[in-house]
């Protein structure tokens, strides 16, 4: 299992080389969500990376509207000699790269793509130029194990770094302070990237890092994602690349520690790392992803209509007088039938149909779909109750 990480300066490249990595991720400010490198800086870092024997990987992970796309597409052609592989996230960038360039492709599937069937189809579509699949951190270990085994392509996941929660092209921070007279605030607004922390009384989590730059606004989790304590396990599963994103902290301080922990893990070493690392850490859904278990509680399944024996819905109940039912099912209702109602808490009520009236109050003995009928009621019936033939 190899480590991969970002460089933002020549110094970073030296640290990366010293720690034995063989590639480096470069974020150009026009192409990369959090990239800060200008053309010259990118070219300089790319050249130096090659001198050091590091493979420069170009990150093109922004999403682009049709207005933005053509100029970036034109520009990437002029930069292609400065990188060995390109990593992409917008399907448009993928299509362009496949049809107009010949670079090896690292395909970021971190949004969605939580099934092997889809991932295999990405492999088939991109073909031999696909050098890596970057998988979502929402995929739990059990699935990841299967994916690594079944996919033909080397797999990368985030090993340490911020968890991106939210990405919008709109500028959300600057409008809050744009009219400020404060010179410090004015200076902040002139910078290409500025950051803040957000918290809400409606959430128990405090201190979400927020970043605004030319690509919009980003919100991150208060804790960083970390699987360093599972590094050996992931290596044994056959994971090819472990991404270490130290851009918010210090590459110099932390990359050697990460390298040591992934080479030979020790609980003491990991505890010491956590003690000094500037952010709290979490493993997210690595052990298990249960983000759908609450769904049944969002809706009472007893209130959901069942098709079998369905008669209709109560629209009105006048205590001890009558209930009004809108017949919606295919069955005919007759005097003498028994109706079953299932209360939201599970209790079943059986009501014999003793009498029925049409809405003009004439007596009827039979009714069918789309009719509105009045009938005898009993204690406990409720509006919106679903009626079934018992």
């Amino acid at each position: 299992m190899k480590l991969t990480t970002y460089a933002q300066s020549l110094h970073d490249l030296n640290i990366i080389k010293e720690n034995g990595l063989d590639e480096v991720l470069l974020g150009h400010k026009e192409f990369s969500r959090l990239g800060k490198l200008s053309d010259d800086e990118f070219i300089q870092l790319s050249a130096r990376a090659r001198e050091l024997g590091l493979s420069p990987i170009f990150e093109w992970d922004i999403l682009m509207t049709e207005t933005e796309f053509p100029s970036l597409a034109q520009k990437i052609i002029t930069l292609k000699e400065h990188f060995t592989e390109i990593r992409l996230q917008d399907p448009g960038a993928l299509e362009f790269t496949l049809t107009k360039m010949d670079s090896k492709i690292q395909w970021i599937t971190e949004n969605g793509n939580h099934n092997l069937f889809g991932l295999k189809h990405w492999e088939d579509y991109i073909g031999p130029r696909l050098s890596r699949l970057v998988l979502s951190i929402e995929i739990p270990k059990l699935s990841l194990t299967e994916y690594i085994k079944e996919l033909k392509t080397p797999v990368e996941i985030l090993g340490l770094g911020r968890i991106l929660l939210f990405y919008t092209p709109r500028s959300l921070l600057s409008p809050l302070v744009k009219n400020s007279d404060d010179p410090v605030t004015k200076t902040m607004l002139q910078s290409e990237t500025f950051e803040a922390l957000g918290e809400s009384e409606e959430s128990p989590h405090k201190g979400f890092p927020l970043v605004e730059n030319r690509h919009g606004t980003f919100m991150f989790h208060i804790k960083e994602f970390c699987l360093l304590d599972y590094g050996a396990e992931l290596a044994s599963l056959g994971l090819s690349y472990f991404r270490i994103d130290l851009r918010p902290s210090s590459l110099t301080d932390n990359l050697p520690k990460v390298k040591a922990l992934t080479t030979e893990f020790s609980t003491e070493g990991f505890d010491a790392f956590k003690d000094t690392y500037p952010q709290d850490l979490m493993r997210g859904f690595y052990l298990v992803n249960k983000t759908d278990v609450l769904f049944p509680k969002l809706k009472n399944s007893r209130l959901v209509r069942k098709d079998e024996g369905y008669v209709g819905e109560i629209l009105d109940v006048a205590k001890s007088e009558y209930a009004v039912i809108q017949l919606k099912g295919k069955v005919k209702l007759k005097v003498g039938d028994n109706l079953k109602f299932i209360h939201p808490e599970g209790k079943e009520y059986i009501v014999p149909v003793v009498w029925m009236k049409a809405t003009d109050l004439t007596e009827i003995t039979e009714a069918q779909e789309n009719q509105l009928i009045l009938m005898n009621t009993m204690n406990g019936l409720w509006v919106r109750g679903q009626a079934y033939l018992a």
Partner: protein
Amino acid sequence: MSYFVPEVLAPAGSLDKLKVAILYGADAVYVGGQKFGLRTAAENFTLEELKEGVNFAHERNAKVYVVLNSFLHDKDLDELPDFVRYLEEIKIDAVIVSDLGVVKTVAEHTKLHIHISTQASVLNVESAKLWKKMGATRVIVGRELSVKESGIIKREAGLEVEMFIHGSMCMAYSGNCVISNFTQGRDSNRGGCAHSCRFEYSIDFGLKDKESIKAYFMSSKDLEGIRVLPEFIKEEIDSIKIEGRMKSNLYAGTMSKTYKEALDYYRDNGDFLSEKMLMWESELGKVSHRDYTEASLVDKAGDSSIYNERENSNDNEWKSIGHVVEASDKAGIIIEVRNAFNQGDELEIIPFKGEILKITANEIMSMMMNPITRTKPSTLVKLPYHRGAERFNLVRAKGSK
């Protein structure tokens, strides 16, 4: 002469809403089954309801699209083939999909038309070309695009293009928000969105001696594109979509009627009259909503597209009274009451086409013909019959509490 107009595509969170939307003029509706969509808490459709909904729609020359736009996990995919085969059997018109695994499952098991969901953030021609190669026949482009950009995509990628024109908006690129996943353990991209973007946040810029700023900084105003309709027509956008499967019958009906009437007017006249436009805008304003924005339909959404207010603070002066469940000479007009009204209140019954029917509720009766002076929510009441009132007509009133 008849001019090109787009399809009006309305939300239908339940079978009743489907009927309301279609009767009020929607050319197509999008609905969800009990699984695979993004509105887990919505009523949604059982298999039998889907069949009934398709029959109801097709009898009226309307189409039904079924959403399968969750980012499905492996185990979710297991049940999908049977479901999509059923959808094909009952002749739904297309499925709305955002994940390649789902696209390929649908293509492998059926010949259904595939529309790529806005969740996939299709934002440029190249992206649309890719999805076309994957088997898509239509893309529902990201809400970050202008109508003009979408027109380019339609022409250059050679696909049908559908665009949102009205309703609530994600502030994030759709499919690119996982706040609920990591803070509340609910997968927003499988139907569990907790709407954290609507919360008020304290923003600390780390400036010395400066207090945090409180703001609903991630909340977007609601989209309203009625004034941009000429652009949609000019660019030949195939379908204009109204958001809101969780919203009321009144919403589904009012939106369908208003946008359809506007487009019918254009189809017949080749233009929009400004006084008509004012009337349609006024109708859209009578349904509960956040402040409106055109977002990115014309120019890139700016500061003014942020809804920096508490939810539901827009106290709309119009209230939904309910809808007509039966109307006949013999029985009168039977209304299912949603919000209470009083004897003497002025009510508006909205017909499926044409002018509003204004009535005064002088005589209100229970179903057993007992007189009532003040109605209660979740009851049925009878009013004397008025010609023109029909089942599923919506009823509203000004200032009823």
